[in-house]
């Protein structure tokens, strides 16, 4: 028993990757990708948001989910919903609709984003709701939240973090490809100096069971490096950023809800 306890609190020691996620219980199996899957087509992806406290057992688990729905067109429409379980039963959710270019970065053109909370009893907390409409105009962002319509700093080469989940699926598996851009995190916070590149097939020792995954890496200011693991059909299976992982899971919403009811993290 003592031995088990020591193991459970021992540091993971190495960065998260598919095989480590599998060892820690964050990944059961890679999601199956249909032969008909087209990254530039219509699709809906659901991800469990799994976090690691850096130890083998303690403090790891699902804290929320992310759903991204892509509708092709000109512009591309991306609908996003994310729910995060906060301490004390509070849930914070963000819903967004984004019009994107069908370019390499799925560059956002215009969007609406709404942030909501429920309280500790599960009731809506309308006083904590914010919503914003925004549009890219050149290198600026015209955003209006309530009665305020200020112009904020944007970028000529702008991406949005959630839309990159779409973009990386459409990038070629081609080394020496590197894209420079600024990223709008949560459609609200600009983080500069990002570089996204293809790193080849993920190292064999980092692979989980199932098909071999390809790896895109993103580094830049204001964020941990992002690692996007894409399967051979160009479907984004896992995203790892620091101690957080997004794991493709059609049952994400149900799994996270069940964990919440069970009081598990």
């Amino acid at each position, binding site marked *: 028993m003592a031995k088990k306890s020591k193991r459970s609190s021992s540091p993971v020691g190495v960065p998260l990757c598919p095989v480590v996620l599998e060892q820690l219980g964050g990944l059961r199996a890679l999601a199956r990708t249909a032969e008909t899957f087209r990254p530039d087509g219509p699709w809906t992806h659901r991800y469990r948001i799994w976090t690691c406290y850096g130890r083998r057992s303690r403090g790891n688990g699902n804290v929320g989910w992310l759903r991204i729905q892509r509708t092709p067109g000109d512009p591309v429409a991306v609908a996003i919903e994310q729910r995060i379980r906060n*301490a004390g039963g509070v849930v*914070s959710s963000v819903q967004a609709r984004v019009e994107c270019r069908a370019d390499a970065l799925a560059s956002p053109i215009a969007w609406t984003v709404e942030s909501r909370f429920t309280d500790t009893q599960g009731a809506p907390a309308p006083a904590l709701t914010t919503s914003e409409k925004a549009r890219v105009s050149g290198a600026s962002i015209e955003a209006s939240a309530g009665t305020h319509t200020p112009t904020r700093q944007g970028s000529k080469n702008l991406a949005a973090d959630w839309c990159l989940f779409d973009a990386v699926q459409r990038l070629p598996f081609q080394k020496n490809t590197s894209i420079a851009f600024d990223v709008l995190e949560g459609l609200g916070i600009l*983080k500069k100096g990002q570089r996204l590149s293809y790193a080849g097939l993920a190292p064999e020792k980092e692979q989980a069971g199932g098909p071999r995954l390809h790896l895109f890496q993103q580094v830049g200011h204001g964020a941990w490096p992002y690692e996007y693991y894409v399967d051979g059909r160009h479907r984004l299976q896992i995203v790892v950023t620091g101690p957080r992982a997004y794991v493709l899971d059609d049952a994400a919403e149900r799994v996270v809800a069940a964990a919440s009811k069970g009081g598990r993290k």
Partner: protein
Amino acid sequence: MSTRLAITRRQFVRLGAAGAVAVAASPVFGAPAAGGGARPNILVVITDQQHAATISARGCPHIHTPALDRLCARGVHFDHSYSAYPLCSPARSAVFSSRMPSETGVYRNGRPIHPSIPNLGQWFRKQTDYETVYTGKWHLPSSFTHNVPGFNVLTAGVGGQGNLGDASTSRACEAFLRNRTGTTPFLLVCSLFQPHDICQWLRLNQVDPGTLRYPQLEPELPPLPPNFELRSPEPAIVASRRDGNEPGVHKGKWSPLHWRYYMWAYYRHVEMVDAEFGRVLRALEETGLDQETLVVFTSDHGEGLAHHQMVRKNFLYDEAARVPLIASWPGHLPGGTRDTRLVSGLDIVPTACHYAGVAPPQRALGTSLHTLFEDDAEASRPFITAEVADNRGRMIRTPRHKYVAYRDEPIEQLFDMQADPGETKNLARSSGHASLLADHRRMLREWEPRLRPAPGVPHAEAWRKA
């Protein structure tokens, strides 16, 4: 929105403590008296584990902190602000009570403030009509809780994950500011958890792989700090902290490259918290509340950041003990200024009380920063103190020197912080500094009787008798 006190702020300053007490004793708190001074809203932003020198506008070339840069441009930045105890719970107990952790009873993480000592929210609820609101980490004793005495908690964040929780915290603060309809002023605490996630990073990168996972980063990795090498004789407890903070990090197991990668990663963590603070600052600015709000930004403690081959906290080298402190209130405090005088986390409660027009709680040890803003020549204090290591350690920091002593440790430390800001030459064993050492021991002896240790705090009696 702020309300008006019928006494100007300048008049209030001139009245000093006696005036503050008089206002506090007024049968209707905040009631107009004469004149038209404003009581500002008060926004206290506290980050977790932020090294003092992590602001791009203050010369750190390895980081991009647009929000903190903006706050510096519109406020006063204190270069020498110290945590009262460079560990989460004890430091927070001092920030929110203006009492030393040996007095609050929070001599280690996860202990509550002694019930006889009010926290800032409780004091404001008793003495003012301010709306008191809390968001984010508390850690007195629970880290992420809705049970924060004296405050209405909007969200407590996500347990142990600043990367997710801080977005909730900043979004809740943003909503509170944008949707505000109240007519009384507010005291809002925005307690952000980053860059504390560096602790997760350390556990997830404990093994040095020998190569960089992202080779493209090598040209931008920060250099090792000048005080990376270990030279100065240290108390054994400090050396053990080096190994105990994150077993496996030290002991020669990390290459210089991995140390530099850790530094690079830490700066990204600070950028994350800057971004979340930026969301709150933007909401303040876009609603115009910035003109009516005193913003005080600080951190509970710093981060080793490879100096002395240390990571994390819980020691008294400046990297852990010194913290950022910025205060801003456009039109009322000087903008874009630096102040090199000694200040402490203890000063936040008296500062908030001063601007709210009430006296600080009895036995508060801090000094309101307004005395410095008013350029009061007597505001400079001869020294400030810190505690550490389950109340075993003490620091006396004077404008020139730093003295560190631990119970049951033969090695004391004395540094000339002007000639040797990296704390590499321990002068305590130099015969040429015997008199200086004696002076600092005397200061500590004179300080201890001012404290009223909580029951059961280890070493408290020994310090008193020292």
